[in-house]
């Protein structure tokens, strides 16, 4: 199974949204904006579909997309749009479905048509915001966000708008805007749940303290830093760097799948970095079942080594589920002011200023099988091909090797062989294996037994986007350099040899 480390803010919102739904059948539109998609879907499932209005049926499609049922959503949409004139609402739902499947260009086209037909369509604007966010045009996503909150004041205080704001302002590194969001949300909760409101206040305080701290920024004058990967332990990932302080060695996993951006697991490291703690959060960690409890955390500045450091690390503190877990987890995709490279050939982590970024990629025998626009504000999604079909792969350095989404494997008609594995907590988990060949640009990965899992846990609840495949570090180890350029917003995969990687 792929490793996962998702920020639990969303999960927290879900739990709270459930309270909103207690005791009464929720208004599906309201439940949608509160992020309570499960309750909204349940309310539709209990009704006669034929008796639903077109508006309700389109809302159901938006909800299905965000509950991991994009296939069903697409089927329903096909039935609805057939024989009907194009409307903004239909085009908007179409955009959502395309986005959930990772069909970026189709989603862009559909949302543009929807907004031409009706410039104040809240769902179309929502998809527009998400597209800009994923395309890393954060300023544009902020513009559309402001427009949405101005044109639809009724949804302004909703959970979905709140968490959308968190995503945008975290990407922009706007501590003041984040503080305001938390204060507003805290005020909303004050009379409903004092304890939760207090937690949000604590989060707001963190952002007040961070007012002038650049987020996820490298501090130091050097043009380039090269941090060696720690010697790989048996069964562990290569992409681990070591921070030494006070006689202790802390292992930091470089994990492009960490949606929180920064997670501390070791209480000693939390203390050493003078991490400030905020309110409670819940997150999914690795292959552990269920939500782990922790707190929001802010590290103002981390003097890593000899004048090199990182500033403005917002994230979460979650105690280790077991003692041999990594001490911290940093998502290099969150670093804003350096071109970062995970060099699986030389086994090192490289951070370079924009001007020095190209100096390391002039290997005489290097080629670049993939250079693509960077899609994803919190992760690294890249286009892929498998079985003659286009798809979207998530480069997830917190995972292991290559794995495939079950729906995608079924769509390709791949042969599936059932397997069982026991997760870290001892729970059995069923999955499949299949032979597959995946191409990222001209890099071809062939697997005789790639794992196949339902990827619903990798779904972004904001958009319903689920990757078709996950490319883990074992697929890159020894052969590739993964470069993430936040200035050009590009992802580059560079390799030494061009032979297909067969495992």
């Amino acid at each position, binding site marked *: 199974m792929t490793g996962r480390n998702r920020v639990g803010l969303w999960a927290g919102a879900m739990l709270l949204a459930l309270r909103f739904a207690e005791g009464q059948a929720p208004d599906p539109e309201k439940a949608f904006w509160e992020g309570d998609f499960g309750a909204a879907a349940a309310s539709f499932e209990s009704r006669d579909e034929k008796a639903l209005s077109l508006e309700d049926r389109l809302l159901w499609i938006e909800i299905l997309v965000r509950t991991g049922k994009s296939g069903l959503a697409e089927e329903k949409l096909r039935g609805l749009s057939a024989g009907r004139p194009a409307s903004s609402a239909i085009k908007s739902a179409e955009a959502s479905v395309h986005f959930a499947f990772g069909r970026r260009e189709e989603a862009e086209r559909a949302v543009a048509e929807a907004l031409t037909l009706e410039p104040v369509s809240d769902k179309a604007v929502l998809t527009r915001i998400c597209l800009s966010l994923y395309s890393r045009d954060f300023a544009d996503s902020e513009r559309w966000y402001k427009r949405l909150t101005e044109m639809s004041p009724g949804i302004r205080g909703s959970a979905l708008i709140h968490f959308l704001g968190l995503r945008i302002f975290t990407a922009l590194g706007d501590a003041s805007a984040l503080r305001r969001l938390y204060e507003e949300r805290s005020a909303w909760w004050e009379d409903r749940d004092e304890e939760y409101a207090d937690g949000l206040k604590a989060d707001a305080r963190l952002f007040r303290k961070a007012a002038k701290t650049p987020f996820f920024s490298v501090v130091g004058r050097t043009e380039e830093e090269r941090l060696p990967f720690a010697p790989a332990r048996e069964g562990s990932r290569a992409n681990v760097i070591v921070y030494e302080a006070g006689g202790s060695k802390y292992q930091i996993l470089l994990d492009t799948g960490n949606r929180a951006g920064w997670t501390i697991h*070791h209480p000693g490291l939390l203390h050493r970095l003078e991490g400030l703690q905020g309110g409670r959060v819940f997150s999914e960690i690795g292959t552990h079942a269920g939500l*782990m409890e922790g707190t929001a955390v802010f590290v103002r500045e981390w003097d890593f080594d000899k004048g090199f450091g990182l500033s403005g690390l917002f994230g979460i503190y979650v105690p280790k589920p077991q003692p041999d877990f990594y001490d911290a987890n940093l998502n290099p995709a969150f670093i804003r002011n350096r071109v970062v490279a995970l060099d699986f050939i030389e086994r090192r982590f490289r951070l370079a200023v924009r001007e020095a970024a190209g100096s390391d990629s002039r290997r005489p025998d290097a080629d670049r099988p993939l250079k693509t626009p960077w899609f994803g504000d919190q992760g690294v999604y890249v286009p892929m091909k498998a079985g003659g079909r286009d798809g979207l792969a998530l480069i997830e350095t917190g995972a292991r090797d290559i794995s495939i989404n079950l729906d995608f494997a079924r769509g390709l008609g791949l042969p599936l062989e059932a397997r069982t594995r026991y997760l870290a907590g001892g729970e059995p988990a069923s999955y499949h294996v299949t032979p597959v060949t995946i191409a990222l640009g001209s890099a071809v990965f062939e697997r005789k037994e790639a794992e196949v899992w339902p990827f619903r846990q990798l779904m972004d609840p904001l958009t319903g986007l689920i990757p078709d495949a996950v490319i883990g570090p074992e697929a890159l180890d020894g052969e590739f350099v993964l470069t993430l350029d936040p200035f050009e917003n590009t992802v580059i995969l560079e390799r030494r040899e061009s032979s297909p990687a067969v495992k």
Partner: protein
Amino acid sequence: MNSGKSRGFLIKKSRPVLAGELILLVFTAFPGLPLSASEIPFHLTVRRTAEGIASPAMKMEDFRLMIDGDEAKILSVAKKRRSIALKSDLGREFILSFKAYEYSSAIERDLSTFLSEIVETSDSLCILTPEQLFRFDVSANKGSLLRRIREVLEKDFRTFREERISTESRLKRDLNGAVRVLEEDPQGFEIYRQMNLFLNVFPEQFRRYEKRFLVPDSKRFDEVLSKLGFGEGERWWIHFEEYQDPGLSEKVQAVIRDMSDHIAELGQAQQNLGEILKTSVIKLEESLSLSDAFPSKELVRVLSAHDVVFHAVFFRGDSLKEAGVESASFMNLAALYGETAAASGGAAANIGADTEGIAAVVGRVDEYFDLTFAWAGPDEKARLRVLAGGSEEGLRYADILTRAQFDARAKLYSRDKIKIEEISLEKDNLRFAVKGYVRAKEGDFGLIKIRVALQNGWDQEIFREENVMRATKEAVTIRIPLPGDLRGASRFSITVCDMLANRMTVEERDCSMKRDSP
């Protein structure tokens, strides 16, 4: 893990070894234990101290054991070591006790480290607050666990603090009354009457206060450990003690001094009354003397009887951080806790500004001899004496064991447990059957950890294979292919742990690894 194969282990349904298969020279290293129906193999932990003559190299023949003066036959002596920092095959039992008045940042830090870095989901965890005992399930969700523990500690520390404040104010009122009596300086029988009233009531109240707030209560330790029963896994007790001001001790001492002066000044006519008062004052003085009141020996005895390693961690509460000076009575208490810890195989440490007390104690390695003898237990209580090299100096062990303490162990050791049978070495394959493990009601599976290690003639490990498996049958036969190039005298050990019952069995054999010509 798939159903048939598990990384190096081939699992089959149990079947006897076929006649005619090539079996290399294998012999049993330990004879079976000669136990009668009422006897159990009793394990006694014996530690060396610096003063004794016992050396780590001592063997079974160097030890003698006397039970109530009669010599008992020792069945085996094994040199062992344990540490919280060392991985344990079985789930461990942790008891964390706290004597504190506020949930301070020091506690939060050490508790976080303990939960995050030390405790595993296979371990069990008890928290003893000043008020009550809690048992927590250890899940991977350590953040939630920390919050739940924090909640009970905060609540009970608050109650404890309030109780201490109210007890002290009551005692202070009595003390001030005594001071007033001395200041008013009544004459004749009146001074006797008033001082005697105070001396009859106050010492008992003070003793209770002292036991509750100032010194450890060994009876409470025994109660807790008896309640938890006896398991096969390691048991660790970590006690957190907050630095405290001397409380009422100094004020009581001042009153005693004044009373003594007054008694000395009593005239010849009141000499008898003075003697009576003097005796009462001496008793009060004695109960104030921490070293006498602290039942260190008794506490060590309780811990040894339950085979628990005790660590002590001292820390300052947030409100006392700036105080600086430690009271003599607390330093005395800390020293005595340190002695107790050392005697039980543990350590004592302070939580400083940059140091975690827990980190300082978890690395402590407890080295001891595991002395086994067949025993039916005492009628009520037995006195044990162990001699090493003809001397009993410098040895620490549970020297007195009660019937209840014996029964707790007997309950465990008399129960059937996981077995290793049908061991054979066939060509390059080690084969054995594992039986008698507990199977979960739901799903009907057993969870077994199996480790096979091979040592050469120089005690160097030359092969190790370890795995955890789910077993759905009543018995499994394991076949482990050994490397084909092993030669010469070797010794192999098979360790099987029943993860659901938290019990283990080890079988060791000497063997000669040589390939017969085909």
